[in-house]
Structure formats: structure tokens, C-alpha cells
């Protein structure tokens, strides 16, 4: 949709863009609060079972967690470059960069799948399904419950983000966007950055320390 058609309702293109960005920030605030409940649960149970959480953390594959962090940070950089390319009236380049970012998102999900397979194999599963003999169940099963909730919700967001980036990449490559019409790419990019920022906090509490 050309921006001229949409701006009349708002009075000006500037007001339309402001409304779009403010709406996106309010959506992001709700997402932050959603994950906040899980982070709070983690904080509470970690303070109750510090030794069990530490022992459970030592069984995590730090290498794969770090690899996934680098994948998401790199994809965020690609999205930021894509937004810049579209703003500079190079939607073709923007489409390629968005496609590459989506691809990194798919690799992230594949690595997560490998990790989940390891957990199923060794029995480090939530609640009653917990079978890991090396770490006592009390507390550790809660760690893995929160691990699967946090990473599962996050993976859901990555999946949505990959779909979003793919649609934006195709539309950008087909010339829908231009220097005069960048809002969808900017907002889609903001969603992907949110997914990245959430992982930046999930990574240290589940894999490190």
C-alpha cells in the first residue's frame, strides 16, 4: 500500500509513523511482561533451590547455547542492515538481508531441536518425566520445567519471527517497500530484535553462572 493512501486518515505521514511505532512498543511491553512472569518464577525457585539449580545448570550444553546466542545477534545485525538498506531505497538488498536473517533463525531452531533431543535422551525433562540420575530431582526438575517453558515460549516467538521476516523479505525483494515506505520493515525488525533481547537474558540464567 503506498503511504499516500494511508496518511490522509492520520493527518500526516509523521503522525501515522508515530502511531505505528507507539503501537509496536506497547505490544513489546506486553511481551516483556509475559516473559517477566517466567523470569520471576526462575528467580524465586533459584533462591529456594540454589544448589539443585547450579547442579542442573552444569549439565547444560554451554557450547550450543553460546552458538545460538551468536546466531541471534548476527541475525539482528542483518535485520538492522536490511532496515538501513530499505531506508536508502535499496529494497532488493534489504530483501536478501532479511532472508539471510530468517535463515539464521531456522538454524537457531534446528540447534534448539538438537538440544531438546539430548534432553529427552538423558531424561532431563520437566516434572514427573524427570529421569536424570546424576542430579537429585528435588529442585532440578523445576529447573528443567522453567528451561522448557522459557526456551519453548522463546522458540515459538522465533518461529513467528522467521515467518514475519520471510514475508518481509519476499515483499521487499518484489519492490513493495522504498525509502518512502519503510514502516513494516522497521516494525518487523523491532519484533526480531525483541526476540534477540529476550534470548540475551535467557542465555546467562540457563547456561552460565
Amino acid at each position, binding site marked *: 500500500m503506498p503511504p499516500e493512501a494511508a496518511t490522509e486518515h492520520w493527518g*500526516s505521514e*509523521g*503522525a501515522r*509513523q*508515530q502511531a505505528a*511505532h*507507539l503501537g509496536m*512498543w*506497547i505490544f*513489546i*511491553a*506486553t511481551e*516483556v*511482561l509475559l516473559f*517477566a*512472569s517466567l*523470569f*520471576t518464577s526462575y*528467580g*524465586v525457585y533459584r*533462591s*529456594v*533451590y540454589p544448589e539443585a539449580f547450579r547442579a542442573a545448570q552444569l549439565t547444560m550444553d*554451554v557450547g550450543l547455547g*553460546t552458538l545460538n*546466542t*551468536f546466531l541471534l*545477534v*548476527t541475525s*539482528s*545485525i542483518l*535485520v*538492522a*542492515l536490511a532496515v*538501513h538498506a530499505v*531506508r536508502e531505497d535499496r529494497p532488493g538488498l534489504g530483501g536478501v538481508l532479511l532472508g539471510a536473517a530468517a535463515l539464521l533463525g531456522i538454524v537457531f531452531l534446528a540447534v534448539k531441536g538438537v538440544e531438546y533431543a539430548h534432553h529427552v535422551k538423558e531424561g532431563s525433562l520437566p*516434572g*514427573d518425566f524427570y529421569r536424570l540420575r546424576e542430579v537429585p*530431582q*528435588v*529442585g532440578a*526438575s*523445576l529447573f528443567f520445567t522453567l528451561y522448557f517453558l522459557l526456551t519453548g515460549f522463546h522458540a515459538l516467538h522465533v518461529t513467528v519471527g522467521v515467518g514475519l521476516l520471510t514475508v518481509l523479505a519476499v515483499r521487499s525483494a518484489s519492490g513493495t517497500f522504498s525509502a518512502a515506505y519503510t514502516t513494516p520493515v*522497521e516494525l518487523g*525488525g*523491532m519484533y526480531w*530484535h*525483541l526476540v*534477540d*533481547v529476550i534470548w*540475551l*537474558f535467557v*542465555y*546467562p*540464567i540457563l547456561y*552460565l*553462572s
Partner: protein
Amino acid sequence: MAGEDFVEEPGRRLSVSGVLVVGVGLLALTALTYLLHTLPHGAWSLPVALFIAGVKGVLIALFYMHLREQRGSNALVLLTSVVFVAVLLAVCVLETLTRFAPTIPPGPFPVEPLPGLESVPRAARPPEPAGPKQP
């Protein structure tokens, strides 16, 4: 600035080199987080790792999510949500940490019937109300 129409300052938009500099910073901070983990570490490791994550989050919000170019109202929305997260997290964790230890249950345990209710004979149940059953 043009009053209500002011949305962003194009002069504050990042150049390609700016995007790349922030990106290199993010990758370097990620590498730093991992390297600190490989060193011998103690109780401060998690706060330090979370502080580095916070710095990365601020960089992404300011430069990649365009907060730096936009009106303060957008930053206010984010700031408000972060304040509420901090209040929720701090109050809940402080409450647990200061709780009298025996009031914390010893861990997950299977759901069991209350003592004396393992097998409920029909006579022990409260009588069913008289009259036609409610749909």
C-alpha cells in the same frame, strides 16, 4: 521540529558503519560473557552476565529498535514495562529469601488425598441435595 508532526530525527539515523560498529560491540560483549564463564567464577558471575545482557539490550533498543531517533513517549512505554518487571522480580525474590525456611515446602511431590480420605465410603460423603438436579 514541527510540533505534533515530529516523529524522528533523520540526522540521528545510523549509517552503515554505525550499524556495523554496534553489531561488532554486541558480538564482542557476547564473546566477553562466554569468556568470563570459562574463567573461575563465583557468586558474582550471574549478576555480571545479566549486566552485560542489559548493556546489549540497551544498545539494541537505542540503535536497532530506533529509540534514539524517536519521541520520548516510545521510550517511556519500554521504561514503564521494565520498571514493572523489576518490581515484580524484586518483591517476589525478596519475599522468598526472607521467608522462614520451614514454610518453604521441600520440593515437588505427587498430589495425594488428604489423610483419612484415601478411600471415601459413600456414607462419609455429604448428602446430595434433594430435589431435581440442576442442569
